[in-house]
């Protein structure tokens, strides 16, 4: 049988101390220690008379955690039982604790119920009874593990010395027991609630003192566990109503009637309302002025370690800051797949089979990031994949929904949406990789699809269709670093422009091919509409940072200053942008609507700070000359003096370029004619040819490496 000691911190506790010590005498303790922190009543005399060892400390030395640690240090028994000076153990208390510590090999602590004394108010009596019966509805001891309630109360608790030595009480002003309960479960210990380890205990306060005590309790919870009690007026009223109803039931069950019952019900309303308010206030105590906080607090103190402006100098801490332990959660973190690649590495590709690169039909699996209607990148991918499928390749799509965009969408619906939004793909569409079957060529697309691609098996080659240099989408960040890293995993890249291919080769030493974005020539053709001579259309999608919309708007403001009569039309966003010039807004348009707009307008403006997009080509296909940025990707496709009018990233110079096309009819004609001719060969069939060649190149590289 384990040895046991009782430790009781005391200050002016003579009211119940005699009764408490008498109850302990019959329990068979090896040691009883009373720590007195400046009592001015007979507490120490009573303790000594009962045979307890007494340690006296100054009032300023007292701390809920600190003093209990002292008590544990000053004793040697294997079980350390803590009581407060107003908690009287019921018969069989220690036996119940001894039993509790046999229920599981990792029991670090145990606690029991607090029974109301006969004079306890009905509200508290009911609450105590209902609260503790909730831990063991069947009346039997209950072992609590990680994930169970962390509740633990040193009013009535027992600790295994090994567990206490490992964790010790935090030196906090309040709720050291709650903190220990959380620490204990997080550290892999268990605790036991034993209904038979009961004490008689109640804080018998008046209404005002109760509220002030709740203020202290919830302030302590905030300081130790970070808990913030929410406050919602409607919910609070409902809680008060429920509380009063519960008390009325309790009073009826206990035979309280008439005036006595009415009096208690009035008190019940005040009690529950005050509790709600002061609990919420206590959680936010650090926001109160320190003098007010001291007045409200029953302990008469201000918040610990919470500096606030205007509250005077903050006292230096006397101990190291106490971290709050957090138990692991089962939910996967946002980077789980990336973490898996780092931890377990890349899954090996299948051995190359000679001749696969030249085989007529390939098994192609494409991983897509989440999508929505109108996504240009997804359109490119699906246009190409559909054409590969039409050539006899066996294609499938695997949607990697890392954002949870399609959480409630089932695969058949995803397939239907891909067909409706982008292209008439005939193959199957899977959500996630549970049904993964392998492929000759696995195609990663957005950077977030690379990591799942690296973990999929049964593949002969992995390629990476790179639509844009995605690290440039982010400021310096984890995402930027991870996006850059995806180019270094050995996937053969097929880039959506020579400019992009060169970046991949030069900066990341990746093997790469390039393809040209196609144009839907059945939609983007010059429409039979009179071409205006005064209209500039601008793709003002301000939510896409790489579109440099602020600079585009500055250029249009400059153009308006020079030529107030030029008609400016903004499209590509549903938002009405604030500008210094008047304009017409068209919102987000369908491809057909765009082709009519391009056919009617005079000059197009479309800026991209990264890779070239579909839009300038579509404008050119409709005979609309277009201004783009020089020195970026467009120049690599169209040349410095091709069909596009190029301008540096400078509002005045962009306005110059727009003016040239508005003024110089000959230049306009040349650009328009050259544009139509130039993009005529830029078809999705041609893009599919290039991507197919890139995939076969990837397979050939693997075969060559094997030789």
């Amino acid at each position, binding site marked *: 049988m384990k040895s046991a000691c009782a430790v009781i911190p005391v200050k002016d506790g003579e009211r119940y101390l005699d009764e408490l010590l008498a109850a302990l005498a019959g329990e068979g303790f090896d040691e009883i220690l009373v720590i007195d922190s400046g009592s001015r009543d007979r507490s120490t005399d009573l303790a000594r008379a009962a045979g307890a060892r007494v340690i006296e400390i100054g009032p300023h030395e007292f701390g809920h955690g600190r003093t209990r640690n002292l008590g544990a240090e000053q004793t040697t028994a294997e079980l350390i039982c803590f009581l407060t000076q107003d908690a009287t153990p019921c018969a069989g208390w220690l036996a119940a604790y001894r039993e509790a510590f046999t229920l599981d090999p990792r029991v670090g602590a145990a606690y029991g119920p607090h029974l109301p004394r006969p004079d306890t108010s009905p509200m508290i009596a009911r609450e105590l009874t209902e609260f503790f019966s909730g831990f063991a509805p069947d009346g039997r001891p209950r072992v609590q593990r990680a994930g169970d309630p962390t509740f633990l109360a040193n009013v009535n608790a027992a600790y295994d010395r090994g567990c206490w030595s490992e964790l010790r009480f935090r030196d906090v002003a309040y709720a050291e027991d709650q903190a220990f309960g959380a620490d204990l479960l997080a550290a892999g210990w268990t605790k036991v609630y034993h209904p038979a380890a009961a004490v008689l205990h109640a804080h018998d306060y008046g209404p005002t003192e109760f509220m002030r005590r709740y203020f202290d309790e919830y302030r302590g919870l905030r300081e130790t566990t970070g808990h913030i009690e929410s406050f919602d007026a409607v919910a609070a009223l409902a809680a008060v109503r429920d509380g009063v109803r519960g008390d009325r039931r309790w009073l009826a069950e206990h035979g309280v009637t008439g005036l006595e019952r009415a009096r208690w019900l009035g008190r019940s309303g005040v009690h529950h309302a005050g509790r709600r308010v002061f609990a919420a206030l206590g959680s936010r105590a650090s926001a109160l002025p320190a003098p007010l906080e001291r007045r409200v607090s029953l302990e008469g103190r201000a918040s610990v370690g919470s500096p606030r402006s205007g509250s005077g100098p903050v006292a230096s801490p006397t101990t190291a800051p106490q971290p709050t332990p957090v138990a692991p959660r089962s939910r996967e973190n946002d980077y789980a797949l990336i973490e898996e690649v780092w931890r377990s590495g890349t899954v090996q590709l299948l051995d190359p089979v000679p001749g696969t690169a030249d085989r007529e039909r390939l098994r192609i699996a494409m991983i897509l990031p989440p999508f929505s209607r109108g996504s240009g990148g997804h359109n490119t991918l699906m246009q190409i994949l559909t054409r590969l499928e039409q050539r006899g390749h066996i294609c499938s799509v695997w949607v990697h929904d890392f954002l949870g965009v399609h959480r409630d969408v089932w*695969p*058949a619906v995803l397939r*239907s949406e891909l067909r409706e939004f982008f292209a008439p793909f*005939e193959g199957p569409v899977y959500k996630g990789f549970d049904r993964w079957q392998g492929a000759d060529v696995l195609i990663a697309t957005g950077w977030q699809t690379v990591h799942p691609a690296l973990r999929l098996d049964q593949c002969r080659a992995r390629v990476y269709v790179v639509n844009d240099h995605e690290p440039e989408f982010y400021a310096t960040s984890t995402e930027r670093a991870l996006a850059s890293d995806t180019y270094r995993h050995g996937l053969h890249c097929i880039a959506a422009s020579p400019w992009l291919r060169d970046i991949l080769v030069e900066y990341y030493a990746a093997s790469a091919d390039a393809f040209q974005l196609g144009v839907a020539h059945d939609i983007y053709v010059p429409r039979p509409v009179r071409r205006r001579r005064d209209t500039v259309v601008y793709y003002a999608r301000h939510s896409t940072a790489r579109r440099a919309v602020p600079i585009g708007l500055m250029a249009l403001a400059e153009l308006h200053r020079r030529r107030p009569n030029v008609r400016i039309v903004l499209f590509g966003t549903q938002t009405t942008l604030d500008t210094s010039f008047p304009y017409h807004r068209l919102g987000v348009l369908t491809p057909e609507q765009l082709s009519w707009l391009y056919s009617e307008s005079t000059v197009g403006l479309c800026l991209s700070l990264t890779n070239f997009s579909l839009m300038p080509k579509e404008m050119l296909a409709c005979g609309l000359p277009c201004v783009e940025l020089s020195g970026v990707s467009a120049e690599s496709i169209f040349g410095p003096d091709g069909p596009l009018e190029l301008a540096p990233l400078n509002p005045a110079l962009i306005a110059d370029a727009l003016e040239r096309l508005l003024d110089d009819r000959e230049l306009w004609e040349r650009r328009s004619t050259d544009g139509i001719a130039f993009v005529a060969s830029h078809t999705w069939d041609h893009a599919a040819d290039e991507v197919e060649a890139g995939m076969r190149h990837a397979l050939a590289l693997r075969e060559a490496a094997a030789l």
Partner: protein
Amino acid sequence: MTAGEIVETADVEAVRAATQVGDPRSELERLRDRVAELEANLVELSARSNAAVAEAQAQTYWLERWHVDLNELMRRPGAEELRIVLRAVRSVGRSVRRLKRRLRS
């Protein structure tokens, strides 16, 4: 040829290939041909399974759109009983139609 027949043929051929011994060059050629044949079988099987899944997805679109899992639905209490009642009603309907046809003829 069914998918099962393709696999069965492949197994038989593999056993034959493994048991035949001859000129190393022709042996190599034969093994290459065999690999190509197996690859072709795999492609054919993939094409068929892809088509089957795609067809099933096209057919179950509305069920998936409305998040209806018929297997789950039929596991609910009363579902089987409801199905039996519906079958009985259909059976009665058929009998009535059959009787009508007889009376007309």
